């Protein structure tokens, strides 16, 4: 446990050390918020204000998750390219666990520096009228979404063992997230078919589901979301371990 805490602290420090980079990350998040804000204002003109606020707050929440969630695939890719992964493999903890706990620390730093502002914007958009229960729902599902996303990123990162860079694959991932996770476009505006497909795939459960729950915070939906999240987490846990193990044993570490 102590080792995990140390890793988390390391990640936290790394985040705080790059505080300026993070603050300008916020700047860029605000630009994209402005674009979304004006776009949806123009789209929903003449409709009840509540609908606009719902939509834009959903997008801010998605923005917040995107900010805080880890970019493990890049970390893993770096480690493979520099050969540092060899050092990590020698440690008494699995690579994925090292990545996870360090990522948690970094995420805390990101939340403290950027996420908090986005969260305040989120609350402001809802006139600060959010029930405690809703916030609790958001926290629990967001935490599970975090773990799920971590696993997806980890799986993506294993491609590093087979190609020189994973930039293209990341682009591909972002394309998938764009539509199937509902983190750029509100999932409840999807056509019915797409909505149905997305609701079975894992991607929505690392983003859009949290937002949908925030809009309609019922115990029933909550139960449904976390069940599916847990199932996917379990599935991907074994899948990512299997893939990582396979990749490490099969391939020669580049530059190592």
């Amino acid at each position, binding site marked *: 446990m102590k080792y995990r805490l140390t890793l988390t602290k390391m990640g936290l420090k790394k985040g705080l050390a790059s505080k*300026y*980079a993070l603050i*300008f990350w916020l*700047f*860029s998040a605000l*630009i*994209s918020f*402005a*674009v979304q804000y*004006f*776009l949806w*204002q*123009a*789209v*929903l*003109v003449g409709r009840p204000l509540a609908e606009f606020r719902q939509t834009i707050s959903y997008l801010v929440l998605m923005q917040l998750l995107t900010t805080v969630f880890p970019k493990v695939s890049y970390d893993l890719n770096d480690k493979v390219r520099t050969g540092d992964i060899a050092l990590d493999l020698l440690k008494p903890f699995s690579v994925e666990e090292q990545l996870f706990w360090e990522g948690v620390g970094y995420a805390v730093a990101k939340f403290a520096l950027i996420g908090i502002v986005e969260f305040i914007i989120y609350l402001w958009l809802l006139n600060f009228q959010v029930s405690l229960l809703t916030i609790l729902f958001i926290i629990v599902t967001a935490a599970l979404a975090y773990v799920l996303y971590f696993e997806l990123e980890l799986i993506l990162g294993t*491609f590093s063992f*087979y*190609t*020189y*860079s*994973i*930039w*293209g*694959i*990341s*682009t*591909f*991932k*972002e*394309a*998938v997230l*764009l*539509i199937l996770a509902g983190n*750029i*476009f509100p999932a409840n*505006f*999807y*056509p019915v078919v797409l909505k149905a497909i997305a609701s079975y795939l894992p991607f929505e459960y690392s983003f859009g589901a949290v937002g949908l729950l925030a809009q309609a915070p019922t115990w029933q939906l909550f139960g449904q979301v976390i069940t599916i999240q847990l199932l996917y987490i379990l599935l991907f846990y074994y899948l990512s371990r299997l893939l990582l193990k396979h990749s490490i044993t099969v391939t020669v570490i580049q530059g190592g």
Partner: protein
Amino acid sequence: MRYLKLLLTYMKVNLKSLAIYDLDFYFAIAGMIIQNVLNILALRFIFNIVPQIKGYSFEQLLLTYALASLSFAIFKCFFINALNISDYLHQGTFDAILVKPVNPLFQLVNARVDEDSWGDLLVALILLIIVDIQLQQPWYITLMFMFIALFTSLIFLGLAILGNVVSLLSNGIADLAETTFDFFEMSKYPLAIYAQALKIVLTFVLPLGWVASIPQEKIAQKHEWFWLAIIPAVCVLFFLLVYQVWRLFLAKYQSTGS
């Protein structure tokens, strides 16, 4: 003339380095095409909710999107390395550029290209042609837009350089280079959707309105041909202003560097 010849050599060398494709390259191309398609679909979904946005139909909004994408794709294909200027300075490789008898900015911009952007360029071009046909624009308007996009990409180049200069002057405190991508997001929509103050900023300060919105309004809608001269002139002017900032920065680098 000399620089033209040099540009050709750079292109030849850069193309060669593109030939080292691997699996990742194909993923990137596929990813980019999918992203474009999805962006368009998302726009389509919006029009499932409302028939028009601030007087713009789906096709018209698609034209704004296509124009911005074409301009940004040209930037990505040819000027993308401008985003990495600060890396060259931090790693000290900039010194190796300064000791050559060619303009350093020219060398920097040409030192690397992004192979994945060709897909973007292709998609943007196809999209522009399709949208123009849908809107029943005469063919010469499409050509005019292609001509204008060559210049409007200079706006992104200017912003990328500016972002790097700010980042370097603040010792990496303000890493603004990546913001170029967010600016692209802003340029994808008509100025009409933005608040009045932001409209003014996007016209006179950060000239993003000139990328797609203004060309669309003046040329596709109003057929005011003299804008074919004004828009490129504005782009060149903006770039020259940024270039002066870059020169000032270079002088500062030389007096304070180690």
